[in-house]
């Protein structure tokens, strides 16, 4: 009996750090599994963002929960119908992604989110904000491609913005499809570093390809 308790005590101590990261992975995995479904409603997506933010604030040194919290927030900004609220949500996403950025500098995935945040600001008033936020958005995509040429997501975001750009400004389906195809090709080769790393977007590219027929 004594041996058993000692053993379990030793076990407890030795597994503590392991249990900690196990707890992190489990919580992340649980939320990642539920993330796609949360994209159906604005309230669910903000709730999901809050889940990631709690993990991020508790862990402090992991860039991924900050990244996903920002990702959910910016998608919430895109879904917000009340234009007067968009900037506030996007600003919240900016605070979160800045933390991810400081934990993992020059990260292509982080640059993608920065681009999305700029786009969400632009969507509030495209005519007036095009010059400032349009440049910020495309600048971050260029950075994302330079930081990791194998990342398919910057090409997806580029293709998406091209679809909604008038042909006269060099947009439209024709040019968008080139970017989307590049993205698809890169998705085939893409392997996320861990199962927690970003691996979203392939489905969206395929949907856009269909839309552009």
């Amino acid at each position: 009996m004594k041996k058993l308790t000692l053993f379990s005590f030793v076990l407890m101590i030795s597994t503590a750090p392991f249990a900690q990261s196990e707890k992190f992975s489990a919580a992340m995995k649980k939320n990642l599994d539920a993330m796609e479904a949360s994209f159906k409603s604005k309230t669910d997506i903000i709730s999901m963002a809050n889940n990631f933010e709690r993990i991020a604030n508790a862990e402090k040194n992991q860039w991924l929960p900050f990244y996903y919290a920002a990702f959910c927030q910016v998608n919430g900004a895109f879904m917000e119908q009340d234009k007067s609220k968009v900037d506030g949500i996007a600003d919240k996403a900016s605070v979160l992604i800045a933390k991810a950025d400081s934990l993992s500098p020059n990260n292509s995935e982080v640059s993608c989110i920065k681009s999305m945040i700029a786009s969400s600001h632009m969507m509030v008033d495209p005519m007036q904000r095009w010059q400032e936020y349009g440049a910020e958005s495309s600048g971050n995509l260029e950075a994302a491609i330079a930081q990791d040429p194998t990342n398919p997501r910057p090409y997806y975001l580029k293709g998406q913005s091209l679809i909604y750009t008038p042909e006269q400004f060099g947009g439209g389906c024709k040019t968008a499809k080139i970017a989307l195809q590049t993205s698809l090709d890169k998705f085939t080769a893409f392997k996320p570093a861990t199962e927690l790393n970003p691996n979203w977007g392939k489905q969206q590219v395929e949907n856009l390809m269909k839309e552009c027929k």
Partner: protein
Amino acid sequence: MKQLLIITLILGFLTTSGQIKISGKISDNKNKPLSGVSISLKGTYDGATSDSTGAYSFTTTEQSTQQLEISLTGYNSLFQNINIGLEPITLNISLKEQITELKAVVISAGAFEASDKNKGAVLSSLDIVTTPSANGDLTSAFKSLPGTQQVGESEGLFVRGGTATESKIYMDGNLVNNFFFTSTPGIATRGRFNPFLFKGTVFSTGGYSALYGQALSSALILESNDLPEKTEADVSVSVVGVGGGIQHLAKDKKSSWGVSYNYANLWLAFNAIKQKQDYFQIPVAHQGDANFRIKTKKGGFLKYYGYLSSNKVGFRTSDIDSINLKNAFSIDNMNTFQNLTYKDRIGGGWKINTGISFSTNKDDIKNELLNEDNQKVTNSNQPLYQFKNFSLTNLSRYAQARFVLEKRIKGISAIRFGSDYFYSNEQSTYTLFNGAKFTDKITDHLYAGFAETDIYLTNNLAAKVGARAEHSQIINKWNIAPRVSLAYKLADNSQASFAYGIFYQNPERRLLPAAAGIDYSKAAHYIFQYTRQTKDFTLRTELFYKKYDDLYKTVSGNSGNFLAHNNDGFGEAKGIELFWRDKKTIKNVDYWFSYSYLDTKRDFLNYPKSIRPSFAARHTAAFVFKRFVLPWKTGFNFSYNFATGRPYYNIAFDSTLGKFAIADQGETINYNNVSISVNFLPNLGKKDARSFAVWVLGINNVLGQSQIFTYNYSNNGNRKEAVTPPSKRFVFIGCFLSFGTDRTQDAINNNL
């Protein structure tokens, strides 16, 4: 041993099934449920998000004292310590909305803002140059807004029954003394500055802040650009001249410099379009400017802008007092303006905004009486004709120093105070036909101190309360001017505002030297405003009452001029104004409509009694319509300006009465002006194009409707002559090229 086992068991039990439920409701301070609120137990993964009824619930295995963080974008976060025992916890919380610039009511009574960023702006920076009736002139665009008059015979903004000299223009806080080119008789001159120099403009038609003074009617506050987006060069060629410039942005994007030069020559335009005046010196202007801008570590700016110009114009017009004589009028002008400003955070929540400016202006004005063969008439012995041969040299020097300190107090409420010092030295020499010279020199030192506070009680109620004190050496007295504005948000998109203020002004230069004991002229403004504004729609109405006191009455000086004699003048103005802008109802079309009703009377200068001044039309309206057709890469702009007739008077000295009297009077015909402009952007969207081109065609008064601004009378009053525009129509054609960056947004320039 057994005990240990039990303890482990209990511990095990606690860790696995000892979850404590924490739940409750979140509401705002009006008890409305808030959804999307994040509730989290600090340092743990545990927490929840409130649902649409404000309810939240989660379980935790944490124990003892923990901190709960409750946060929602737009609300002040709350931290609450809780003690987790064995019982479930119910915690209802109310959050307080943050007072932010984004949500707070805008103190807007009397002001129109043109900006791309600020909430409450009614125009964008681009609107200033795409309003066809403005011809690319900065101040003219504001004539399509309510409150201003369609005065075409002289420059400046005539606001709510005030003269153009009652409107002052500021660049980054510093006064611009010679904003317009020197006046020529019967022709409105343009502003000197390129509209693209400024990122934001506030046009106040009354009730403006205590930070500004010496303007009875209106303040136009211009804010210069920060750093350019990219290094670029541009070139322009048009029917009125050529120009070019460079803006260079440092690699670290922390500083920039720029130079530009513009040469205007109206030879081509005046040959193509017949002018009423007979030019012996076609208008020619050389204008150069230079700037640098340095961004500081704390996000502040050090900015310099320097401007130098030299221009000439000379024309003959028929002399109103004779059958076949002519007047030859000419101006040779040199102007410089230097503005250095610095704004930054200086720690402890304080901000400083300071600047100095220097400017000089020199005019050589000459008038000669000519015969039919354009020879100078010197042999006349009638004083009426003799006095038409004269020359006038004005040399003015101005300097200003200014500082404003600002501190945020609680949320976005703030206090600010500061001081202004203005120095002016204006020297003029008037030379008569016989060589007799009259020289006078006016110098003034004007000191001002001001303090102001912005108080945001809630997001829905704000007040700006301030006062300004001034001491001018010319008057040698202090004045104190209180200013108050209130704004109250009625619903999400609508608000009501009120403004009150007292404004003082010195006599303008041409009325100096003044008689001893002269005082400031004075105006009191009362403004009530209602605004409803969404992103695509603006409706605003303003009701105002303005009372003038101590206006200057004049007496004749020794060179045919009028000098301020006493402060017995007075006046009032009241009216209602409407502005409507809609970018939504018709797809791809943006239009606005403005209407002003003005009822004003005043007795000032040499007026024999209180009358409606010659610059005041009762009804003024403007309609502006813009459409950009993407597939054609072309923008079409249309504007229609209308005003009912203005009164005109022949105020002449009646020798039998021994005073000035109205010898004749009437009202001009209604004013109509339809203008169009077309902008073609051939390289639009070609991302790899090395240059960006904008072609502009603008036609002012397309329909050639006759416009009469006022009438001039002959000396004996027997003859009157309509003052009309120099030409029926004006056509502008130009091409603007820029290299280095896509200037889609700001390229639709008209005239530089």
